[in-house]
């Protein structure tokens, strides 16, 4: 469990950094940069979570 939290935190740090850069290159004003950052963060982390769930399901099907 501790390891999972650690890995989750590592994932969030790098996702946030990537989202901030995406927000910065897509907009100029503070509102625009924040909006794009949030949008990218949700999209990136949501996509990764869905990918992990899909892989886990696939693994469980293969193992069964």
């Amino acid at each position: 469990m501790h390891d999972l939290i650690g890995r989750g935190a590592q994932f969030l740090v790098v996702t946030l950094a990537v989202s901030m850069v995406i927000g910065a290159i897509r907009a100029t004003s503070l509102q625009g940069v924040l909006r794009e950052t949030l949008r990218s963060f949700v999209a990136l982390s949501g996509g990764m979570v869905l990918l992990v769930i899909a892989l886990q399901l696939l693994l469980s099907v293969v193992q069964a």
Partner: protein
Amino acid sequence: MSETDRPSALLPVLLAWFVPGLGHLRIGRRWPALFIAGSVITLFVVGMWMAGFHNVSHVREPYYFVLHAMCGLPAIVADLTTESVQVTHRLPFEPTGQLYSAVAGLLNLIAVSDVWARCRRGDPEALKERIAGEDPYATEKLVQGDAVDAGARTEVAGDA
């Protein structure tokens, strides 16, 4: 905007490489500069911390240093200050830290490209507003990721 009205991209691009965020600051984009500096430098330092502050070195890690060097001054400072460090043991999160610092370098490369694009093509928000004001179908084009082409078409139509 004609070719002669555009500011030179050389100095902002060099500044953007040398210090993350400085290129955007040079062209008057304060918030993007702050976000890029915050994310790139933080990720770079967190990566170094996870790797025990000895991962950025052109001698010990020459291949990774190519990516680290994209961060400019932080990588040079880290390389010089950790030159005499002797690596006695490997930390458990060292590969992750190494990747973090490398990703920070690649993110700064994207920021450098953005500075160049802003100097050559103009501000992305202003471009969106201009397209939305002049072209009723601009929103669909923006959704399709066709903003730059649409802007170029509008510019050509305006010139004509």
